[in-house]
């Protein structure tokens, strides 16, 4: 019989833990989830986006209603657990429901802290914690004008920004000397304040709230120093408290949070706590990364596979506050026994500080440019010596030596005031499109289109860009014109904010084109699939037609079908079957491909699922950015020169790596001797058999970028070929740009670098682990469609013929 698992709290930490449990064992538990909010699990971190009005609840939903259903989870949303009977192992809810449990998880999160001052319960006073708070604020903003946010921490500033967006006047009230004192030092905080004030926020520091006043509803805030301000809406964002009431009432040990050990077990057997409500070794975490780490450890433990215990997390903060990047980690305040290295560039609003104690890097704050954050975080965790710091961290990049205004301007400075075009945007357009004249710049960027006053400056920028500066902008290759972010920046944000859909990425990262384009959507689709194997479902509407329909579109709108023929080795029966299918569907052309397989050309879209069903063969992925084919020579079984079983290895490679999505197509070959009949020298991965071993070549290309492959290494066994190839493929998947072939990628990152990565045993094992995770999540797409009537209807069937009638 399945054990009964009850989760109290339908939020990010708890549901994530359930996802981990399902990954281990889908059948182990009968799962029931209670959540007080009437919504499925959503991304609370993105609430400020909802408040700003450009994102809907749907866009930030992490687990849809359908997800719960699909996984057989009973969800009671909008129902609160009011009692836990630890003796009889059951929970009771506010609707009188009683549910038994074998294992019980508390993931009750935290509650906003409401200041205990007079008037805190007046209408017009709200917290900023859930969807309902957001909706309330949006509603107020329609009628009222003046908002006050109490609390100048991250949450308060996000609320303030949202309200500003909604057209309200916003006062931010903070009790301390400077904003965000938990994440920033005073210098960074002052820079942030300046930026926020520029955006229209009014910041009041050292103000302690005495009371909220108003007749029937809130009308203002009075402070202890006797001053007061008017306000129609007051948002309390002064902090959160772990939600532990139920646990305490139930007899579970509670301190600040619910006390748990390294396996997230509470003081009561079979009861666990995870997330913001849990206190581990005296610490209550509020950031998502540690909560997810806890979820994983708990999932293992609860499934009876206790692995590594949870030993606490070192936290770093990397955030965008009102459009400004900030980062901090470790011991970032100057104190006794610390020294610090600083860069303060007021003109560019950039500040960087590294804190050093006894020669070791112990903390850092970055403001305005956080690109080195991750690296610094690693250094802090390792306790690197200060000598490891690279000088480039402190290079003031924009201060060219020429002394011209154009050169000295920051990328974010506006050149064309009428159209709001920055120096960065202009320089990027010049570099990207090779612009030569002011008129061209105008056409691409709108700069100087209106009053024309900035023409001189644009001309100067053009001149400036023709010099060595051009490289600086050329280096930053954005995904497409819809964003100013590079691939690396996008991937980092996807991971950090745990963005799960193409739409979410575009919306959260501020895509200029709301729905993206034919370049970025397939790219994002790939990156998400690479980052979340098994979790991310491809979005049909974000795929190029070939990958959406699993067939190659032809010039006349028909399609081609290439079934998998492993290693190019077939049988009489298989050939007969293919011939029968070709006849049945009147296939206009049957062609032997360069990759040693058979192409059926001229197939109608509607016929594709039927042909696949009749063929009964797996997809050859001839249409995909994925492993295409492994070409082989005859090999030693028949060939008198062959030294190795090339067909055997080729088949094994194709079976191992088939269905693996890659940044661009991947072709492979295995030859049994250096005569190289399978043309291993111009493949993405080419293997050549020699006496007693195999040579592995990588980065070859026989297409537009004709390139001989580089010898990566020589190995002794087939197993080693598989291992090295797998690690190479995974590293390519993780670090290449979408649509970058291995030939270009190898040249860009360098063969030596790739060797360093792959030859390090630990790194290689980690790569292979991720590769196997990706591979195990794949299924044959043709079979999936053949078995799925809904997909056939959605993607393969048109509306057909219709008769016109007169308009009435």
């Amino acid at each position, binding site marked *: 019989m399945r054990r009964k698992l009850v989760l109290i709290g339908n939020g990010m930490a708890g549901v994530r833990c359930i996802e981990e449990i399902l990954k281990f064992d889908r059948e182990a538990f009968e799962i029931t989830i209670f959540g007080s909010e009437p919504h499925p699990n959503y991304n609370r971190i993105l609430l400020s986006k909802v408040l700003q009005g450009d994102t809907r609840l749907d866009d930030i939903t992490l687990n849809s209603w359908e997800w719960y259903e699909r996984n057989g989870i009973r969800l009671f949303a909008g129902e609160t657990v009011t009692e836990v009977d630890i003796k009889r192992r059951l929970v009771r809810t506010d609707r009188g429901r009683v549910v038994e449990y074998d294992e019980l998880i508390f993931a009750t999160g935290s509650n906003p802290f409401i200041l205990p001052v007079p008037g805190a319960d007046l209408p017009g006073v709200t917290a900023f914690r859930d969807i309902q708070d957001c909706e309330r604020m949006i509603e107020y903003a329609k009628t009222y004008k003046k908002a006050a946010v109490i609390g100048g921490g991250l949450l308060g500033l996000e609320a303030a920004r949202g309200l500003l967006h909604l057209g309200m006047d916003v006062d931010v009230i903070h009790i301390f000397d400077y904003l965000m004192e938990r994440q920033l030092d005073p210098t960074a905080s002052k820079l942030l304040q300046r930026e926020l004030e520029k955006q229209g926020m009014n910041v009041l520091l050292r103000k302690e709230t005495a009371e909220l006043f108003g007749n029937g509803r809130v009308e203002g805030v009075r402070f202890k120093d006797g001053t007061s301000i008017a306000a129609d809406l007051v948002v309390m964002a002064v902090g959160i408290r772990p939600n532990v009431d139920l646990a305490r009432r139930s007899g579970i040990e509670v301190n600040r949070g619910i006390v748990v050990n390294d396996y997230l077990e509470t003081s009561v057997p079979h009861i666990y706590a995870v997330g913001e409500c849990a206190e581990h070794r005296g610490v209550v975490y509020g950031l998502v990364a540690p909560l997810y780490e806890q979820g994983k450890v708990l999932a293992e433990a609860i499934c009876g596979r206790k692995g590594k215990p949870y030993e606490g997390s070192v936290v770093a903060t990397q955030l965008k506050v009102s459009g400004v990047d900030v980062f901090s980690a470790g011991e970032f305040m100057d104190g006794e026994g610390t020294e610090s290295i600083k860069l303060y560039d007021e003109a560019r609003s950039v500040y960087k500080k590294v804190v050093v104690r006894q020669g070791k890097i112990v903390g850092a704050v970055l403001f305005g440019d956080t690109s080195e954050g991750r690296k610094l975080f690693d250094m802090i965790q390792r306790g690197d010596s200060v000598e490891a710091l690279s000088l480039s961290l402190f290079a003031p990049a924009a201060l060219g030596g020429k002394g011209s205004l154009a050169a000295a301007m920051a990328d974010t400075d506006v050149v064309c005031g009428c159209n709001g075009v920055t120096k960065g945007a202009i320089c990027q357009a010049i570099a990207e499109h090779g612009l030569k004249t002011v008129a061209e710049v105008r056409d691409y960027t709108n700069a100087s289109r209106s009053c024309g006053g900035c023409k001189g400056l644009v001309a100067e920028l053009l001149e400036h860009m023709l010099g060595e500066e051009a490289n600086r902008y050329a280096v930053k290759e954005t995904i497409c014109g819809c964003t100013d972010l590079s691939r690396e920046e996008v991937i980092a944000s996807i991971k950090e904010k745990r963005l799960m859909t193409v739409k979410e990425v575009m919306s959260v990262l501020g895509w200029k*084109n*709301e*729905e*993206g*384009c*034919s370049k970025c*959507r*397939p790219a994002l689709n790939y990156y998400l699939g690479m980052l979340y194997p098994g979790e991310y479902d491809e979005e*049909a*509407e*974000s*795929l*190029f*037609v*070939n990958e*959406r*329909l699993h067939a190659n*579109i032809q*010039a006349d*709108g028909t399609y081609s079908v290439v079934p998998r023929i492993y290693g190019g080795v077939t049988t009489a029966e298989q050939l007969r079957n293919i011939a029968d299918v070709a006849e049945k569907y009147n296939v206009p052309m049957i062609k032997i491909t360069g990759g040693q397989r058979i192409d059926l050309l001229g197939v109608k879209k509607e016929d594709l699922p039927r042909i696949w069903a009749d063929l009964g063969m797996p997809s050859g992925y001839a249409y995909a950015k994925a492993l295409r084919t492994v070409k082989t020579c005859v090999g030693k079984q028949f060939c008198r020169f062959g030294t190795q079983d090339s067909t055997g290895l080729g088949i094994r490679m194709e079976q191992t790596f088939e269905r693996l999505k890659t940044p661009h197509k991947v072709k492979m070959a295995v030859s049994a001797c250096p005569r190289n009949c399978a043309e291993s020298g111009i493949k993405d991965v080419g293997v050549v058999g020699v006496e007693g071993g195999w040579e592995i070549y990588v980065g070859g290309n026989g297409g537009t970028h004709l390139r001989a492959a580089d010898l990566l290494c020589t190995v002794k066994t087939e197993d080693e070929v598989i291992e090295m190839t797998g690690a190479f493929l995974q590293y390519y998947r993780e670090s290449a740009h979408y649509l970058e072939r291995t030939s270009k990628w190898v040249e860009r990152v360098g063969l030596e670098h790739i060797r360093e990565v792959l030859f390090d045993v630990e790194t290689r094992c980690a790569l292979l682990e991720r590769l196997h995770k990706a591979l195990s999540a794949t299924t044959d797409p043709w079979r999936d469609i053949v078995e799925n009537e809904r997909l056939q209807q*959605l*993607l393969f069937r*048109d*509306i*057909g*013929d*219709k*008769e*016109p*009638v*007169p*308009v*009435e």
Partner: protein
Amino acid sequence: MQGEDEERMKVEVGTLEQLPKRLGKCVRVGNRELALFRTGDDQVFAVENRCPHRGGDLSQGIVSGEYVFCPLHDWKICLRDGQAQAPDEGCVKTYRAAVKDGLVYVEL
């Protein structure tokens, strides 16, 4: 009132529900082939299903806002006026589409 519109013809192409968002569908009316699109914000557009470049099947293109990218050579076509976007030049015929009581109609 009826007399004025006598030559104008329309076809009913099914319910709005049947049109998936951002995935085009093709419909044939006589010898005409139309590509139908339902955008992310639930507008419906109908254009001639032939890219002005090489006759590509526009109904299979990637849809973004009020544009479709031809699957053959990535021309960007505006669904509202049928114009190919710079640097390409050309135009496809557009048809007026309307939704009434959940049913989608295209005027020819």
